[in-house]
């Protein structure tokens, strides 16, 4: 048997569950319910309310990516550090939350952040007043960061781990202080990991769904929630067509970010996790 045949089950799977649905999305996006070609589904998105949802989604995704980078980079640097024992078990700790379903993790966050939740009860016990988390943009942002942080840590960790440490020793021997070593040697060498991490956090964050509705009590909805609403609850007779055109626009957004990644990291050194 030829080696190329080994991928047949996967290819069939993808054909059935990725290619065929995509064809449906394309078909619905450019047709009316009667099956006639149209571009009017896209015109629907000139309405201001959609712009507001997209801007909110982009804004939160950008904040989320930035926060993940700020938290994730030092974590990855720490994990890749030379003198560290048991690195493997620490990496597992980072991965551990991902073994649980995303919705369960989000419900856990709700329990923590609720007005009478764990955090607020503790604050109240210490007579420190109450902080309103649930229902705010901050809560949604926390939920996003919590869920997607591992996607930032892992690619950066992979790149830093593979780094040739003698280069850093050389920089130190040549008199560079730690700050200079970081800014002139480590950071430039870890760009592929950063790019990979940024893309892998930004993509799911911008299309995320359910997290925002749950943590905002339904007050802040993102692009994913909008698509869900259009397909499942809207009474517009064109809902499948409008929903498909919106899904297609999100898909193009993701393709653009992949293109961006290929440009900055052509050899896909950033861990190649996807």
């Amino acid at each position, binding site marked *: 048997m030829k080696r190329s045949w080994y991928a047949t089950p996967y290819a069939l799977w993808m054909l059935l569950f990725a290619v065929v649905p995509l064809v449906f999305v394309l078909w619905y996006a450019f047709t009316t319910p009667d099956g006639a070609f149209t571009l009017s589904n896209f015109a629907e998105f000139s309405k201001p309310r*959609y712009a507001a949802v997209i801007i909110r989604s982009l804004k939160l995704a950008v904040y989320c990516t930035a926060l993940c980078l700020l938290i994730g980079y030092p974590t990855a640097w720490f994990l890749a550090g030379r003198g560290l024992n048991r690195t493997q078990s620490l990496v597992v700790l980072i991965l551990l939350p991902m073994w649980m379903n995303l919705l369960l993790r989000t419900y856990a966050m709700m329990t923590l952040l609720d007005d*009478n939740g764990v955090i607020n009860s503790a604050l109240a016990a210490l007579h420190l007043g109450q902080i309103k988390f649930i229902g705010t943009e901050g809560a949604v942002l926390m939920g996003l960061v919590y869920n997607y942080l591992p996607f930032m840590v892992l690619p950066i960790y992979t790149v830093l781990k593979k780094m040739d440490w003698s280069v850093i020793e050389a920089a130190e021997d040549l008199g560079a202080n730690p700050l200079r070593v970081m800014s002139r040697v480590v950071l430039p060498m870890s760009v592929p990991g950063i790019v990979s991490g940024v893309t892998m956090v930004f993509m799911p964050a911008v299309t995320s769904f359910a997290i925002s509705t749950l943590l*905002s009590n*339904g007050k802040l909805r993102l692009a994913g929630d909008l698509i869900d609403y259009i397909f499942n609850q809207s009474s517009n007779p064109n809902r499948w067509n409008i929903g498909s055109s919106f899904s297609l626009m999100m898909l193009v957004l993701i393709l653009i970010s992949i293109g961006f990644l290929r440009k900055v990291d052509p050899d896909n050194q950033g861990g190649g996790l996807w």
Partner: protein
Amino acid sequence: MKKLAIMLLVAIMTCAIAVAACAEGDKPFAGTEITVYNWYDYIDLEVLDIFEQETGIHVNYVNFSQNEDMYTRVSTGAGSYDVIIPSEYMIERLMKEDLLEELDLNNIPNLENVLPSLRDPSYDPGNAHSIPYMWGTLGILYNTDMVTEPITSWNALLDERYAGSIFMMDSVRDTLGLALKVLGYSMNSRDEGELAQAGEWLLNQKDAGLVAGYILDQAKDKMVANEAAMAVMYSGDALYAMEKNDKLAYVIPDEGSNIWVDGMCIPKGAANKAAAECFINFMCRPDIAQKNMDYIYYSSPITQVVENLSEEELASTAMNPTEEMVARCEYYNDISDVAYLYDDVWMDILM
């Protein structure tokens, strides 16, 4: 020829025995299966066990949390169901679109247990397609520790003192409906201008920071946990919450509200219609209706159950609204032909 005659005889006898077994046996549908598609948290699950034991019919039990979700799945054939339990306006719509089977009322003798006032309703004359399961009203549940004076009007939802402490419903008909009502219009308005005003009322409420959220099933637990001053709620959820927290009170505002009935229906093409009717009949049995009411706290339409209510329950607005209160309320009608108007306004509030 003789052989043929014998074979015929045997065949006839076999049939006769089978028919007799059906008629006399108390488990005519034993071994069959039905799928019941009901609201989330809307039955005493023990009832399903009793049904399975008594009839030998296996029940697949699945849930929805909004009429509109349920409609999508039923109308697109995404799932095959034998019994569904939509609200009256959705029953009307499903009937219009010919998505419901006509019930064989001979198989549902327990229909006579249903309160006369809820039998033969305007949305489904003669109960040809639906048998009432539970009924109730829409109102405001509030915490009497946080809201000191009694609430009488929907305008309490605009009270600045409770900013950020008011839960609205993630439900287009109920939320837009109450705004229409407070403006003096019908909850079944088909007028674009009226709907736009209702939308504006709700947007003002949201933009002023009054709304804590648009949620459904979680609201009752949040009210029990004293997490908000008030929440728009169905009477049954309100009863559940009041049972767990005696500081809560339920009111049907003076402007009027919605009275609703959730009915058991059989969707077109149900695989096992007779067994489904057997299930519906079973659900109308007084002891079973009592069990369900005790568990989910909604008002049962079964006469024997109502006669059994305690004095306290009879006095409860949520459990047993007075005739005068009911007179203020209206059923939802099917507005699916102008649903895009509702949708347009609703998305501006939600998104």
